């Protein structure tokens, strides 16, 4: 590997690692907010709530049917404009600067994530046996209590493999945030690469960091899944 300056590559590692918090921030926020919104939208669909049900279908279709990078640009230019027009209409004094690139990225990724997770959560909830909610009602729980305490915990376990895949996908997809100026792993790498004209070394380091992050989270997710599945039967002590 004569063409690769190993020394240079090693020196860049600490600098590029400084982008990891941003990569993780975007990923984790998009995962959590996406899951919360996705769960709410999943209920709109399951209970066929008039209007909201149709809007959810439209929402999911749009955000799954358009490129993420295009969505990022639309939010990047659109959100500050939205604030200005809200100020105009309602005489509010919101500062459009609250829409920093980071905030915009968090919003865009969360919404995009929600569009995928709506379907994941919906099918997981629907895969839980109907008898579970009936039993909850039969012991006097309300539908909400039954959902919260019985159905959702079971649905969550069913959804875990999909949620895990989605999380790993988000780690990689978060790299697109450099396009709106986020200094995540890829954002920092681009600056370094452009300064030193060492493109290959820099991007190889970036690739290895993404790979490592994926591996670490795959291990963590596997542990979570194993723990969450205890109620499906601890091996060997079945009667």
């Amino acid at each position, binding site marked *: 590997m004569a063409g690769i300056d190993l020394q240079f590559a090693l020196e860049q590692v600490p600098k590029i690692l400084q982008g990891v918090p941003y990569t993780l921030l975007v990923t984790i926020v998009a995962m959590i907010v996406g899951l919360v919104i996705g769960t709410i939208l999943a209920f709109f669909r399951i209970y066929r709530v008039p209007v909201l049900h149709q809007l959810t279908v439209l929402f999911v279709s749009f955000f799954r049917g358009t490129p993420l990078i295009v969505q990022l640009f639309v939010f990047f230019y659109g959100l500050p404009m939205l604030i200005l027009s809200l100020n105009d209409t309602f005489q509010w004094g919101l500062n459009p600067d609250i829409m920093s690139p980071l905030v915009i990225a968090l919003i865009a990724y969360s919404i995009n994530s929600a569009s995928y997770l709506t379907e994941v959560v919906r099918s997981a909830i629907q895969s839980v046996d109907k008898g579970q909610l009936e039993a909850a009602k039969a012991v006097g729980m309300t539908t909400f209590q039954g959902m919260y305490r*019985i159905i959702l915990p079971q649905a969550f376990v069913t959804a875990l493999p999909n949620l895990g895949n989605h999380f790993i996908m988000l780690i990689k997809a978060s790299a697109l945030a450099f396009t709106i100026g986020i200094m995540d792993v890829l954002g920092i790498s681009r600056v370094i690469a452009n300064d030193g004209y060492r493109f290959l070394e820099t991007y190889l380091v970036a690739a290895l960091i993404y790979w490592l992050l994926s591996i670490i989270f795959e291990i963590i997710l596997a542990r979570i899944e194993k723990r969450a599945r205890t109620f*499906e*039967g601890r091996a060997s*002590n079945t009667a």
Partner: protein
Amino acid sequence: MLTVSNLHKYYGDTHVLKGIDIEVKQGEVLSIVGPSGSGKTTLLRCMNYLEKPSSGQLSINKVDIDAKHVSKKQIHTLRQQSSMVFQQYNLFKNKTALENITEGLMIAKKMPKSEAEEVAESFLKQVGLSERKQAYPNELSGGQQQRVGIARAMAMNPAVLLFDEPTSALDPEIVGDILAIIKDIAKQGMTMVIVTHEIEFARSVSDQVVFMDQGEVVEKGKPADVLVHPSHERTKRFLKRIHQEPDFII
């Protein structure tokens, strides 16, 4: 204690329950028998409002409901008067045997945890399952799961216990154990409605038997009358067919 008057249930155009009238007194055991598809499960589920009746009146423990105009709150109150034991057990899969029982006590009845656990343990003991209280449903046999199901229903301290074919999903050799437990509860003076295919059991445990066919109550009365000397042709045919079937058919 429990009264069903002129209860009708439609699924779309299908008329599944055609004006059911039933009365069960305090401490009585009522068994419902009848061919498959006659509406037994539907009737039982209507009593617990897991299924909404199309019309008719229901009254359990002085909670009266008219299916035509009923509020969510009324349904909730009515439901708390009875408790259901399901054919497929329907234990909460993400809860241990103990938690299956404490769940309703703590969440619906707002009982403190320690008290709920005490109650749960005493009922688990009654069904002979104390040692398995930390097991999840998937770690229990069918018979054990149904014991938890019965303990869970009883722990709610309902005015009426509802059973939907509590033994029909079980291995034949366990059926007797579960029936014995149910008989035991009956002896304690519990008011019960039992849908069952176990004719011999129905005969010995019931104060009253209802024979249903095609969404109607064809015949009701004392078990010795309905099950031994039925007066209707349909009841006779049903019993004859049941007796021809070997016991161990599932």
